[in-house]
């Protein structure tokens, strides 16, 4: 997993609510496309018009937002399907951080598995950031160690993140490696459970 420490860069305001993972990456792209190539298809339905040309109204097609590493989004970003391809597509398109009032639960988890930082801020703060970024100077700083977003005007906005998740991101740690250290506990649990709930262990 990629580490995440501090990120400074352009933030693109995409302030619709309920942007779902079907919109972030279409399902067909999950069958034929390699993970590394999914960035080209991020937000396909919004990014292109029916004739395949770029939609100039879409924020990521506009300067200076093209390739922005930070997205400012409306509430419930990443709701819907569990497809981790949504995170791969965002990362492939250069996004490393999404700031929103709230996120879809499964998407939120998937972000941490890949080193994309989802930041929850109050709606009013996200709105203020979006207004400041829409105005031209669109650079934000996201400081994970200090749990702060610094706005273009220098305003510091603290955000919450559990220590465990923060540390894993700061160090790029893989969950699987950590869990394998608990193998003895897993074995003990299973041995006990086979006695306690035998019906779980003999399907069919």
């Amino acid at each position: 997993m990629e580490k995440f420490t501090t990120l400074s860069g352009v933030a693109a305001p995409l302030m619709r609510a309920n942007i779902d993972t079907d919109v972030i990456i279409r399902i067909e792209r999950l069958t034929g496309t390699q993970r590394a190539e999914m960035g080209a298809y991020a937000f396909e339905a919004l990014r292109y018009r029916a004739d395949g040309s770029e939609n100039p109204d879409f924020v990521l097609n506009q300067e200076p937002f093209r390739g922005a590493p930070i997205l400012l989004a409306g509430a419930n970003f990443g709701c819907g399907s569990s497809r981790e391809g949504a995170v791969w597509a965002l990362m492939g398109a250069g996004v490393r951080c999404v700031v929103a009032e709230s996120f879809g639960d499964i998407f939120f988890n998937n972000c941490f598995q890949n080193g994309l930082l989802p930041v929850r801020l109050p709606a009013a703060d996200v709105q203020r950031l979006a207004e400041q970024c829409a105005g031209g100077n669109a650079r934000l700083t996201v400081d994970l160690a200090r749990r702060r977003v610094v706005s273009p005007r220098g305003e510091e906005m603290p955000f919450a993140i559990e220590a465990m998740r923060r540390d894993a991101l700061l160090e790029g740690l893989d969950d699987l490696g950590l869990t394998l250290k608990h193998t003895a506990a897993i074995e003990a649990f299973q041995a006990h459970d086979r006695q306690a709930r035998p019906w779980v262990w003999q399907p069919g």
Partner: protein
Amino acid sequence: MPVQTSSDKLALFDKIWNSHVVADLGDDWVLLHIDRHLLHDLSGARALEEIAQRGLTVRNPELAFATPDHAVSSAPGRNEATFAPGADLLRGLRRRSAETGIRFFDLGEDGQGIVHVMAPELGIVLPGTVLICGDSHTCTNGGVGALAFGVGSSELVHALATQTLRQRRPKRMRVRFEGTPGQGVGPKDLILHLIGRIGAAAGTGHAVEYAGSAIRALPIEGRLTICNLSIELGAKMGMVAPDDTTFEYLAGRRFAPSGAAFDCAVAAWRELPTDADAVFDREEVVDAADVSPTITWGTSPEQAIPIDAAIPDPDSAPDLVRREAWRNALDYMGLEPGRPIAGTPVDWVFIGSCTNSRLSDLREAAAMARGRHVASGVTAWVVPGSERVKRAAEAEGLDRVFTEAGFAWREPGCSMCVAANGERVPPGQRAVSTSNRNFVGRQGPGARTHLASPVMAVAAAVAGAIADVRRL
């Protein structure tokens, strides 16, 4: 801070969660034991591939079950090659399942079908178990009293390799549906009504329990429909406490315990329901008698209205964000505010998906379709949720009722719910679908989806327009 339930008053959720903690990781995080995995052709094939590439092993293959559903054709007489892009996924899932010792249900076999349809019908998911799948509608399986939730690819690999997941304890929410629903109102209407009222993000961060007299009165298939749309409420887990209805449903199913083991399991399952006085972080109550047949008008499941209502006007939206969202939705859907939703002409009708493709759904739809005919210009499909549903429906003659009424009767799978198999609603065309998502492009680029119940879908097919099933 979430309100803590006092330790002796536990909710169904707490009882299942607490009994699956392998290790406490601090900060409300635990290592949670996983009792069942479902694998499908999109997420499962990829996860098993990654397990092999990383040199990992599947820790408990006997607890995993695989079947293709997303990327298979639903065309009558299909085989794995009918939808060529899905064939590799299907073959990959079949091969990796065989290599790792995972049970695989192939096309045409009892057990094949949409994972969330086949798991309850085969008794794979049981009360009190923790079940996962790389699919957000895994919450469906909570209808039998399980803790079931969708995960992404990384978590799926983690769970296959360790039979555990790192999870943070969610908050708890209870929704009580009380009373008796009126004519033409079924489980789909109840849950769409709830999402319309409290919003598509209301359940975020929560495990939701559905309770109340209207839920107790529902057969298991209706409870599965309710739980299916938990993720549309923002909650990755939804559940209904097991009761006699649940035990009767599970008795004799292929992978459920039998004989003395079943009795022993039932005794344990009877301990699962939420204790009286257990405290939830959020409670909602819906009077079922207040719910009308419900349909969505926009591109989020929260954009749901009674069938006799008018299409909302963005100028009357409660806030600026929603005003903008409503405008975008109306624009995409090609609808005018202020007009009645009923009477809007439709091009397609899709009866299927893990929401509404079980035998009871097809029986209700067939009862409505019998002696009627699909309007000219409308293409109407019925896609059974599983091979078992298909066979049972055919044994009752439901397939003939549908075909005589002008519906196409197809092979089991996800089909047009997500269009991963190339079966799409054409751009700009309007569909009434019994599925769960009306997102932009969900049923194909430019497709316009209205979510409704199976009987409302039949009403639309017959009328050639969105119609009130009570007036048919």
